[in-house]
């Protein structure tokens, strides 16, 4: 169990999952095993599986806060805020000194648009667990959004002093620099974040904003590709399929008219396919090669 907790703390959730599966294979009623597995699955964005594990945890001990905490986390991921809120309230009642419980409550308030309450809860979470960098970065985000630049700067500096490579910390510092008009510094932070994870949405958005300020066309290209990344494969596939049906219908109508029109319709459809599938792939390749060049320069 100690190994699992170490892996979890280091962020190696897949390995922790494998160990937990072995542990639960030997003891299927291991309460903490199911609890930790649910948290690991949440971190891996497997919210449906996380919820199933959370429900098993609750069945094993209905009064313990752990099961309800895990269930609230999973429900938050599944965007079922009302149900998540009920479980989060129970956790706060049972464990009022738990920083994670306040953090969870803050994230729920943020998801439902209650910024003031979210900020209060984030502050409480940070007070209770001052070493949790994720709590600090969430607090800094909300301070930045509400325009409190000086407190935000202090919070971000705390994060970067504790862990200079913290990706969210770098992105937030980049955003703050961009807000204050220091483009070069903002760009440095964005590149450092992208070098660690070139698909980090926050880092890509920051870079898009920087590019937009120097070259509007390049900014639009970046923003478009970020949007496609945010859409994901499922929505992109749906867009292409719907365009296909519309194109086929339009061609059937056009065939009663001219062939030039049907050619234009197919051309439009292939254009959509290019924008939906090929353009993001091309962007991905260009970005990776640019980042590799920048990595070589650093060496």
């Amino acid at each position, binding site marked *: 169990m100690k190994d699992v907790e170490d892996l979890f703390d280091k962020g190696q959730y897949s390995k922790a999952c494998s160990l937990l599966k072995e542990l639960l294979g030997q003891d299927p009623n291991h309460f903490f095993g199911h609890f930790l*597995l649910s948290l690991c699955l949440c971190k891996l964005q497997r919210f449906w*599986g996380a919820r199933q594990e959370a429900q098993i945890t609750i069945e094993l001990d209905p009064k313990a806060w752990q099961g309800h905490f895990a269930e609230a986390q999973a429900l938050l991921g599944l965007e079922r805020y009302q149900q998540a809120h009920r479980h989060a309230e129970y956790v706060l009642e049972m464990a009022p000194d738990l920083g994670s419980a306040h953090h969870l409550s803050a994230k729920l308030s943020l998801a439902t648009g209650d910024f003031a309450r979210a900020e209060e809860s984030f502050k409480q979470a940070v007070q209770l667990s001052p070493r949790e960098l994720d709590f600090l970065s969430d607090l800094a985000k909300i301070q930045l959004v509400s325009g409190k630049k000086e407190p935000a700067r202090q919070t971000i500096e705390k994060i970067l002093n504790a862990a200079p490579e913290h990706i969210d910390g770098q992105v937030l510092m980049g955003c703050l620099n961009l807000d204050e008009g220091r483009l070069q510094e903002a760009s440095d932070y964005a590149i450092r974040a992208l070098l660690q994870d070139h698909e980090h949405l926050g880092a890509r958005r920051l870079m898009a904003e920087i590019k937009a300020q120097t070259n509007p066309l390049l900014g639009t290209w970046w923003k478009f590709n970020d949007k496609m990344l945010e859409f994901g494969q499922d929505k992109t596939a749906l867009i292409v*399929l719907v365009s296909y*049906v519309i194109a086929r*219908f339009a061609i059937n109508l056009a065939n009663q008219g001219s062939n030039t029109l049907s050619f234009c319709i197919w051309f439009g459809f292939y254009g959509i396919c290019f924008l939906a599938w090929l353009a993001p792939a091309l962007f991905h390749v260009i970005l990776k090669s640019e980042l590799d060049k920048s990595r070589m320069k650093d060496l």
Partner: protein
Amino acid sequence: MGILSHQQGYIQIKMEFIMYHIPDEPSPGTLQQWVVNPIWPLVSYIIIGPLMAFLWLLFNAGAMGVLNRKQAINLGGLSFLLLIVAIVLTIAVSCVFGFANYETFSGLIMDAGGVAVAYFLYKIQMPYFRVYSSMDYPVWNGMVLMGAAFLLRPLLILAQMFFLYIIL
């Protein structure tokens, strides 16, 4: 669970673990080496046609262990039923708008119905595929089959039409 076995004079201890199965994990079988990203069968709907897409999507779901054979047959049956409903609907719509527009409306209804079924089959296996690919199971590059199918497109379209002719 330890199993003791004597081999060449040594005592070998084999540790066999019963792995816990998380409900959102697929259970791939012997066909796992043919599993592809479900986007490829879906794209094959546009490039080749509906029949290949449906069969490929069903096969992929079965190979990944998302559906068992019975569920795959049931889904296949349901898709076929939807096809019949689409045909009946086409005839009804054509009666209303006149048979001069038959091709236009039949095309729209068949395409919309076909795309909906294909997207449904894609959507049910996609969450499992994400877990599947994160668990280091083999994933075959569907582009190879797509390329081959594109080259043999006229033959495949003929085969599809022949199949539909036999059924209907």
